[in-house]
């Protein structure tokens, strides 16, 4: 019951005195109440549970986890291990 999923805010509007948002989950769309994330802007990702956004996705933090493990891979590569992942530097180039 506590599953919440990230979706992208694509529109913000008012309904019955509450801030609401149209949320895109990779193609399928629905609405969610944004009253608890008043700073949310269109284009940002929010985490939605039972029709309410309960948190704004911190994209920098999301990135950090990967970078930490990519660095582990990079280090292994430098030590001569055969690792298949794309090096972190290449990934960053692609991201920016």
């Amino acid at each position, binding site marked *: *019951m*506590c599953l919440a999923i990230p979706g992208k805010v694509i529109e913000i509007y008012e309904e*019955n005195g509450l801030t609401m948002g149209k949320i895109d989950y990779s193609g399928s769309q629905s609405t969610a109440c944004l009253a608890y*994330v008043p700073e949310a802007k269109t284009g940002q990702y929010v985490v939605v549970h039972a029709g309410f956004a309960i*948190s704004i996705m911190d994209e920098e933090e999301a990135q950090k986890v990967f970078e930490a*493990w990519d660095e*582990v891979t990079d280090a292994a590569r430098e030590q001569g291990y055969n690792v298949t992942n794309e090096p972190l530097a290449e990934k960053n180039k692609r991201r920016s």
Partner: protein
Amino acid sequence: MKYLDEFRDPNIVKKIVKDIKDTVTQPWVIMEICGGQTHSIIKNGIHQMLPEEITLVHGPGCPVCVTPLEMIDQAIAIAKTDGVIFTSFGDMLRVPGSHSDLLKAKSEGADVRMVYSPLEALKLAREHPDREVVFFAVGFETTAPGNAMAVYQAEKEGLTNFSELVSHVLVPPAMKALLDDPQNRVQAYLAAGHVCAVMGWEEYEPIVQTYNVPIVPTGFEPMDLMEGIRLAVGQLENGRADLENQYSRVVKRQGNTEAKKIINEVYQVCDRKWRGIGTIPLSGWRLNDEYQMYDAAKKFNVGSIETMESDVCISGIILQGLKKPPECPAFGKECTPEHPLGATMVSSEGACAAYYKYHR
């Protein structure tokens, strides 16, 4: 899907597993609190990838599972009342009460409707001023922001035909109750990420200190869970006990302050009975004194309903992490998701149903 798929990367999960294997030197027991995490662990085989030193036990974090039988019976009694539209999250509809369930009540003529958000229940109340609309407000801290908002809005709009049957449960008191049990085996907790998204982790810090137990707020994807386990094992191996946040992309120390404001406006802490466990002091929310007119149990006078549990079901012991579902003699025999004897078989987040689905 963005922010989901990346966190399922099997290559990184493998790397984390290797790191855990390199770190671990002795047996440890770690409990994931949340039923959503239990489901993800069993589904993705996380428990099978771990070194054998590490035992995961599945906690009581499935609201559907721990909602006491008499609440289900009260819900059914209200749903059968003339003029009532009874609304609920889908997963409560099949939970067996003493004699029936909400879906059966519906097939017998009760107006039971599944809603995805409590605001849909409120909408029904607006659209049907001649009917009483009741919402079954169950769940942990994660569902409370929405459930509280529905009452708050009803009050603001002057909607008098809306009420809630409230059976909210709180995670930290249950974590404490488990640690206080003399049979306790749990040495570290993965805290429920979305509960912490709402509440933050300040209330977990005293538990870390008092019981000297690592607590790691953790997300739901395979990479999150493995990383949460890695952090917990790292602490245990180093003799540390800290609050360490794995789910930093969603969980902040103070939680969601806007949500906490509305929750505290509408609900107040109370003792709560947990199915299979018993009453845990100060482990639930009920409507605040100023919002009593939104209490469906009072409005429909069902508060005195008493109940009986199946005596073969050991779900209480399973919910405390003392036994695994296949150790129940009824598992997969008399008790299946089609004919559940206990609530841990009903919800896909219940430990028995998760084992039944992925492990037979």
